């Protein structure tokens, strides 16, 4: 079920030290700000442009995704090899999604919603910072959808 695996020991067999709460919040804020600036600059926060992307009348999405994946790929592949642990502590997590039916069905439903509204989870939030308060409707919908998913999920 967990989509992220956070080991409790490092690759070198040391016990992982937790990141201090204040440092974690600061790191998340700064990283999020870079992410949000990028979403705004790349016009991912504009649903009308994203719908053009999705109709492939503008191939911009390929550059946005490609640029994002490229930088992240370098970090994900190199940081665990070059650093004993993350700079603020903790341990390098692994993203582990299982390839099963719900995962593919969920992706298909997600795509239908994305193609309908042109908004995905990150840009819905970032857009608020650019004054796009209409995106509150999308956020409300996404939150309700997430609630429905959790309420209907088989409990383990």
């Amino acid at each position, binding site marked *: 079920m967990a*989509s992220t695996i956070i080991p409790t020991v490092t690759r070198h067999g040391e016990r992982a030290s937790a990141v201090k709460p204040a440092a*974690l*919040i600061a*790191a*998340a*804020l700064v990283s*999020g*700000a870079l992410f*949000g*600036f*990028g*979403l*705004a*600059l*790349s*016009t991912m926060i504009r*649903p*009308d442009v994203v719908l053009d992307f*999705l109709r492939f*009348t503008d191939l*911009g999405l390929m550059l946005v*995704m490609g*640029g*994002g*994946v490229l*930088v*992240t790929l370098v970090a994900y592949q190199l940081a665990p090899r070059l650093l004993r642990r*993350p*700079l603020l502590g903790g341990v*390098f997590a692994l*993203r582990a*999604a299982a390839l099963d039916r719900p995962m593919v069905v*969920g*992706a*298909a*439903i*997600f*795509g*239908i919603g*994305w*193609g*309908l*509204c*042109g908004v*995905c989870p*990150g840009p819905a*939030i*970032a857009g608020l910072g*650019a*004054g796009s308060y*209409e995106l509150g409707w999308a956020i*409300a*919908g*996404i*939150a309700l*959808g*997430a609630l*429905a*998913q959790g309420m209907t999920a088989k409990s*383990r």
Partner: protein
Amino acid sequence: MYPNGLFPHGWEQYLLGGLLIGAGVALLFVLTGLIGGMSTVYSSTWSYVVSRPFFQQSNLTSSRVWRLAYATGLIAGAALWLVLSGQPSRVAVSVPTWQLFIGGILVGYGARLSQGCTSGHGICGLASLSRPSLVAVITFMGTAFLTANIMARVLAPVVGR
């Protein structure tokens, strides 16, 4: 098919924006080791008020604080862009409310069922060289392409945009 070229609004902002998105996800990883997809925050925040065991899983309750901080950062970053970009006021949204809301419900349900969205599967998953994420990306790009094209023909047959 491309009367105005492949990138009718130019391409630099897309590539630079994408590189910055990646820089944010990369920075979070290098500093804390955490994987920064965005859809989980919609479930982890419910863990504050919904007691159902699903929402009390430790991977939601233990990450809800930093995920909210990350989301706050997204808003701050876009606000900074608004100031620096010299936009006259705000970015208005032209897509109708019902589309945002209904589409949003499907986005939220689907992304959580799939355990990832455009950033979770698209950026973090592909950068992890995860084959399941590649399947997810191909799947949601396909259904999004179909839906967006069908909607354009159903809703705007006259406007011809």
